[in-house]
């Protein structure tokens, strides 16, 4: 059955934006895991990857917003504001669309938390930012359960090509974080014991936090992620 695509413009736009959002978020997650695994060995490679990671993540968030907002104009689905903003309130496959809404919120909050990392602390931000992979997994479940093109061969190929590298990189990250990786805390040499400095009459000047992109000399770069 052939149909006029102009009659389904909002729906097609939403599907296209969803696919673009999936690709962008996948690319951003892959870049983040590559940096977290300390895979770029060359000096300065990580500094070049970081802006790319940020820009692709922002593009994915914009595509995600377009994916949800364009559904408001769909005359068949008619989700309304509540359908796209409140999980499990849509009448179209409520479970999987609800999972997609939760995944969207998670990706947006965890991605945008980068800009408040000074307020919440770098260590806490790193701990929070790791859950982006969980939100990405929810997004994959949403695509498989509620995606119109989920049964299409080309989308299955895209999903497979994006999920497999993320799974491998995430497994590497988890294994390296549990003491088996090359940079695990168990393999780090113990810091030398310091003698307590004598008390000075005037307090030392307060140290400011180092810049995000400029770690202190001798500090491991991977600790930032």
């Amino acid at each position, binding site marked *: *059955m052939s149909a*006029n695509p102009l009659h389904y413009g909002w729906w097609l736009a939403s599907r296209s934006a969803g696919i673009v959002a999936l690709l962008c978020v996948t690319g951003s997650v892959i870049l983040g895991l590559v940096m977290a695994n300390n895979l770029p060995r060359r000096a300065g490679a990580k*500094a070049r990857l970081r802006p790319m990671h*940020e820009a692709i993540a922002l593009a994915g968030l914009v*595509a995600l917003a377009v994916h949800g907002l364009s559904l408001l104009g769909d005359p068949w689905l008619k989700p309304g504001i509540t359908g796209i903003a409140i999980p499990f309130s849509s009448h179209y496959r409520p479970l999987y669309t609800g999972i997609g809404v939760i995944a969207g919120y998670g990706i947006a909050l965890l991605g945008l938390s980068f800009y408040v990392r000074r307020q919440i602390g770098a260590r806490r931000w790193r701990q929070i930012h790791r859950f982006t992979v969980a939100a990405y997994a929810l997004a994959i479940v949403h695509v498989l359960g509620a995606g*119109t093109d989920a049964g299409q061969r080309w989308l299955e190929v895209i999903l497979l090509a994006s999920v497999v590298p993320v799974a491998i990189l995430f497994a590497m990250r988890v294994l390296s974080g549990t003491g088996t990786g090359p940079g695990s805390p168990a393999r780090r040499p113990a810091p030398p014991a310091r003698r307590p400095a004598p008390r000075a009459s005037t307090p030392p000047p307060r140290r400011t936090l180092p810049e995000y992109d400029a770690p202190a000399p001798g500090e491991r770069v991977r600790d930032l992620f």
Partner: protein
Amino acid sequence: MFAREPLSRRTLAVVASTTALFIVVLVLLSAQMASGHDPALSANARRAKSQRHQAAVDARAAAARAQIEAQVQAEAQAQQQYDENYGNDGYVPPAQDPQQQAVQPQDQQSQQQNVQPQAQAPAPQPQYQAPVPQYQAPAPQQQAPLQSTTS
């Protein structure tokens, strides 16, 4: 914060790439829909086709049922007309032995008792009931005592 200058250049590049990707995907999906291979519309078409098929089957079954009912009704009217015109006096069922008639109700009762526990569901009542001919069995003729013709 890291350097802003490369971010702006790369941001522009990423925005342009994302927009191009969005347009390409949109065009591909539109072409897929225009060629009749859209998965959602195909599924809807299959569903509608199956609904139409089911409706046609139901209509055919209803027509056949109505035809049968009309036929049964016509037969009943014809039988009734026949009975009104000619009556049923000409039909005399064969006489039965009075002893069998006396035994028969008992047998029927015992058969009903045997069958009753098994057949709990009421049998469907036929819509057409043919008029039962009123039959009165002739009184048994008294046999006269045999008289010998030879004295």
